């Protein structure tokens, strides 16, 4: 695979605030790459740096192997889909789509033809002469995508384009974006604060927090092996028990917490005496003693039925909330509120990360 976008030791500061701490990322060509993080984490800044709306304070940006320093936003092989979509309200749909061709001096007939091809691609044939305000939210979305694709960019930058849509449409657009990306082969860099969106669509995800790149990995890897406490808490639901590492044996860390002593997979570099936290996904916790060896007592508080599973919310004696996802077949013997329960999990399902 060739490299599509390379960020090399990028840094960005605004006055005294540091929006992006020094980071390096390489996005492969044809990849659906997401940058995930809460608002204000610097992800939009990175997108704007790639688009060329801002210059990094330090570091280099390469697109298709070419250094982007001194190359303006209107000269870069990128095209962006804005959060607000930023369609041009005074132009009909086809002129919106063909705007990038118009400014490149493509003759009108060819522009119109290309716009209609793209309208077919986004399943909106016959909409060429509509005005933007006549379209529904999902249609506007697709016109924005067509407009961005019309200039045949190497990289498509998407700035939370689905956040304004309702849930149903958002889920639909998710799969549509994904299949469009596979069909066109264009590199997508997708910004979102919605972890389920990032996990569902992406080939790889970069997680950011407070301007710091936390981890770059495939969605499965990110979920199974978060490398930092932030990633563990931000991506998916998790239970966290803080304590101190007593010893390390066979790659398993023994952690003393106020809720009990737990065994878990120790992260690299973890050593005895470290302050650390044990992270366990709710679906890894089961009712009863189980086979695992990690067990804790808690008081059941409530059961939330979620369809395929039900989430049991309980509380330890120390007052810490614990969540356990119970599979469907265990719902019959689910404990009533106020019952004392014994919960357990396997060491292989628990991850121990040292405190930063």
């Amino acid at each position: 695979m060739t490299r599509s976008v390379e960020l090399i030791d990028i840094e960005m500061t605004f006055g005294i605030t540091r929006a992006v701490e020094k980071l390096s990322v390489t996005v492969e060509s044809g990849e659906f790459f997401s940058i995930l993080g809460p608002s204000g984490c610097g992800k939009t800044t990175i997108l704007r740096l790639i688009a060329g709306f801002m210059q990094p304070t330090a570091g280099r940006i390469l697109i298709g192997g070419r250094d982007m320093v001194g190359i303006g936003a209107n000269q870069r092989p990128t095209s962006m889909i804005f959060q607000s979509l930023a369609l041009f309200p005074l132009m009909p749909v086809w002129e919106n789509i063909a705007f990038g061709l118009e400014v490149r001096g493509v003759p009108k007939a060819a522009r119109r033809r290309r716009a209609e091809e793209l309208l077919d691609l986004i399943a909106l044939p016959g909409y060429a002469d509509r005005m933007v305000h006549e379209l529904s939210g999902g249609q506007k979305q697709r016109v924005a995508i067509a407009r961005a694709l019309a200039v045949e960019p190497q990289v498509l930058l998407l700035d939370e384009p689905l956040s304004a849509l309702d849930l149903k449409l958002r889920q639909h657009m998710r799969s549509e974006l994904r299949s469009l990306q596979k069909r066109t082969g264009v590199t997508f860099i997708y910004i979102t604060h919605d972890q389920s969106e990032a996990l569902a669509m992406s080939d790889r995800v970069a997680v950011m927090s407070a301007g710091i790149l936390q981890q770059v990995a495939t969605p499965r890897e990110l979920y199974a092996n978060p490398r930092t406490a932030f990633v563990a808490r931000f991506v998916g639901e998790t239970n966290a028990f803080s304590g101190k590492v007593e010893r390390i044996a066979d790659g398993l860390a023994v952690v003393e917490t106020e809720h009990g002593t737990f065994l878990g997979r120790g992260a690299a570099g973890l050593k005895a005496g470290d302050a650390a936290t044990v992270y366990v996904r709710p679906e890894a916790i089961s009712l009863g003693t189980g086979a695992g060896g990690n067990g804790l007592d808690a008081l059941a508080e409530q059961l939330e039925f979620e369809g395929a599973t039900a989430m049991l919310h309980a509380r330890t004696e120390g007052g810490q909330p614990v969540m356990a996802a119970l599979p469907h077949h265990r719902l019959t013997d689910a404990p009533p509120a106020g019952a004392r329960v014994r919960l357990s999990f396997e060491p292989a399902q628990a991850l121990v990360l040292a405190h930063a």
Partner: protein
Amino acid sequence: MHSLVKRFGPGLGSLILLGVAVWLVGMVLAPNLMMLDFSLRPNLTPAQIGGPDDHYTLVNFSALFADPVHRAIFFKTIWASALVMLTTLVVTYPMAFWLAKVATHRAVAWVTVALIIPFWINEVLRTLAWYILLAFNGPLNVVLVGLGILDTPMRWFGDAGVLAGMVYAYILFMLFPVYNSISTLDSAQIEAARNLGASTIQIHRRIVIPHAKAGIATGCVFTFMLAAGSYVAPALLGAPGSRWFTEVIYNWFFEGGNWNRGAAYALVLLTLCMVVVMATLRIFKVNLADVAK
């Protein structure tokens, strides 16, 4: 009218309506009808008024187009006002765009104050300042000759002086409508256009100017009307070769003592301004209600 009564009650509602009616009839309609009446009668001595010669005639209007000097001044006023309008737009547009989309809040506040402060001074005095600046031995000529740009001082009074004085006098009437309309443009649209490869000129031509159309039309209408009706700038900064139609009207009223001729000339100017306003609005496809906003 119904909503007025609904909001203020029948008493206060009708009082407001009455006030507006008195204003329109007494301050707008009556004087203009009197002007129309004046303009359609010949200029007579007091003894002849009411006599056999006192009948309606178009002689005052035909006199304007029969007199080559007055006719020339009339048409010159039209195109010169259009030139003032265009120059003001060209000077103002970059500033309006900068204020609306580029400048920080702090800079906007400072620049706005700096632009408004001169307008606390009376228009005559402001124009007098230009009179001093542009004088033959004034600062502008001293600087230009000192820098070696000019060999000998220039006579600025005349067309150049009038243009400078008017552009300066009416700049805010153009700046604020244009600034207001540009500032309602979503900056993401500018970025989207740039992102799609548009140059700065293409962005302005296709995105910013079409969006700011109503503001530009409003500013143009204001500036044209003010320029066509201006008296101070041509009187102070003009030369015999740059007479303005308002000066001719003034002369008929106050020097020539021929109010009937003056009234006819004034009505022609009024009609012309209305035609230009309507034409501008038609060209920009803006309606009068948008301008009033």
